[in-house]
């Protein structure tokens, strides 16, 4: 008798738990519904349709017609597109390594507890608070060839600075400088968090074994920071391949095509010329390039870790 009651009790509990579980699942779906629905509408569908669009001649005014690989073939002969790719490669090759090295060096310096460390950290971080447009505007004035801050300071030491933004050879370098100025603070903070994550015991035991400072750096700090470096490297790279704001605000892609970046071209082609099919093909080509570079990075990173 008692045995039987226990059985039914268990049964009721199981049913109740099942009901509770179902209620919880329903609430779970409801809770994620806003994010998922918006994701489908504004990310999921666009990714698929971007791919489709790149095979059409869609121009907003008429209906899209399938043109096969025509857009992609056109890309290979599009000198301006090739130029924009070379421009952005130049930018990435300059910007990313400089960003990694500078933010690492600064983070290492600030990782010691000396008076003023917090103040320095704050100062280095402040440029990162500015918007790309405000920074671009301020730097347009700093880089003014006659009255700008940079060339005036250079003239103190007898150097005649170039017309930074009007010169094809210095325009992109100027953008590298501006974006470095803006970006170092944020990555410095990420590096500092990474440094905090390296166990102090590692350093202590290495010191006991008689390791010197350089050995500590090369055998503990750098390997300990590898995930951080990888993260900063890959995020800076993905971001810098999509350079737009500064190239748009400071130089309008010029002089000539010296700072025309792929995103600038996509914006222009898609929203000014309304060649959305062709612009989508450009966007996908850029996506593939970014992807290839990311995969190479992942590979290099994992093979280094295996060593």
């Amino acid at each position, binding site marked *: 008798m008692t045995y039987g009651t226990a059985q039914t009790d268990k049964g009721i509990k199981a049913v109740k738990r099942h009901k509770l579980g179902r209620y919880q699942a329903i609430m779970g779906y409801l809770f994620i519904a806003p994010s998922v629905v918006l994701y489908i509408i504004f990310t999921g569908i666009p*990714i698929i349709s971007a791919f489709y669009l790149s095979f059409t001649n869609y121009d907003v005014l008429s209906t899209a017609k399938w043109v096969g690989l025509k857009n992609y073939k056109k890309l290979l002969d599009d000198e301006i597109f090739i130029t924009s790719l070379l421009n952005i490669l130049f930018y990435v090759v300059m910007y990313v390594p400089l960003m990694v090295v500078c933010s690492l060096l600064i983070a290492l310096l600030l990782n010691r507890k000396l008076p003023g460390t917090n103040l320095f950290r704050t100062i280095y971080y402040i440029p990162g608070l500015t*918007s790309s447009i405000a920074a671009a505007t301020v730097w347009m004035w700093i880089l003014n060839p006659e009255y700008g801050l940079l060339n005036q300071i250079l003239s103190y030491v007898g150097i005649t600075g170039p017309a930074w933004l009007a010169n094809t050879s210095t325009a992109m370098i100027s953008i590298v400088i501006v974006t470095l100025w803006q970006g170092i603070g944020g990555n410095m903070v990420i590096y500092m968090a990474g440094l905090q994550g390296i166990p102090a015991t590692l350093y202590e035991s290495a010191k006991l074994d008689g390791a010197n400072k350089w050995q500590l750096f090369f055998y503990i700090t750098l390997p300990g920071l590898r995930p951080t470096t990888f993260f900063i490297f890959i995020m800076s790279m993905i971001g810098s391949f999509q350079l737009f704001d500064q190239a748009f605000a400071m130089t309008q892609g010029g002089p000539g095509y010296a700072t025309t970046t792929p995103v600038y071209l996509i914006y222009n082609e898609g929203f000014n010329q309304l060649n959305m099919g062709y612009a989508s093909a450009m966007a996908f080509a850029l996506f593939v390039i970014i992807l290839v570079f990311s995969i190479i990075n992942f590979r290099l990173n994992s093979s280094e870790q295996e060593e």
Partner: protein
Amino acid sequence: MHRESVGKKYMEGILYYILLIPVAIIMILPFYWSLITSFKYNEDIFAIPIIWIPNRITLQHYIDAFTTVPYARYFANSFYLASLGVISNLFFGSLGGYAFAKLRFKGRNLIFRILLSSFMVPGIVTMIPQFLVVKNFPLVGGNDILGKGGTGLLNTYWAIVLPGAAGAFAVFFMRQFFVTLPTELAEASRIEGAGEFRIFWSIYMPLTKPALAALAIFTFQAGWNNFLWPMIVLNDPQKATIQMGLQAFSYNRNTEYGAMMAGSLIAIIPILVLFVFAQKYFIKGIAFSGMKV
């Protein structure tokens, strides 16, 4: 021996500042330079050599910035848009993040992974179709049910708020925080018969204040500084954001450096003020984004 190491320490300290101070100057000088320019008379702006400490100042450039273009309006527009972004991301991000961390349902991990994968897709790839989605949004802006005939959400703030209302980053960020909170809290309330939303809202949400603060700042800054997307979907000058206004101003009046600097500083001020009051949350937010990959 002892004296030698003290001397070495001392030298190191000096070297430390010799390295740090010039970098600090590079970082801060552009602000000082734009600040003094914004208060100088035009003749002083174009003086050679540089007048480092102006002996007379004017507010004319600030007046120009607000009167030649509706800069106050742009400021208010951006503030409104960034604030809406914060509110919606905090709410939907927490709601979704909580569900992914604490509720059990089929497909939870798979859906979460799909959401996360959007980080890998560069924004530029989805920009054009996103524009088309906005333009062809059914039943608004003169569109029929198939999204044809009108302009959809273009030129409305929905075009900016809606696509980013529940960003994958907000969901991810909040999930990582909820995961660290104990599950027993929910189980105890469930036994007492509390509903799931109440458990989320009155038990877990009050515990997430530091995470919410960091996310709020992160979202506000992103919204405030956003440029390309608003420029694409808005063409009514009355609706323009501050970044659009500043860019147009410096493009059209590219020799009026005083007003350009005044405009730039005004465009930076809200974030600077936020930073002064909530520095640790800025640092937390950005350090977090680096730690979790």
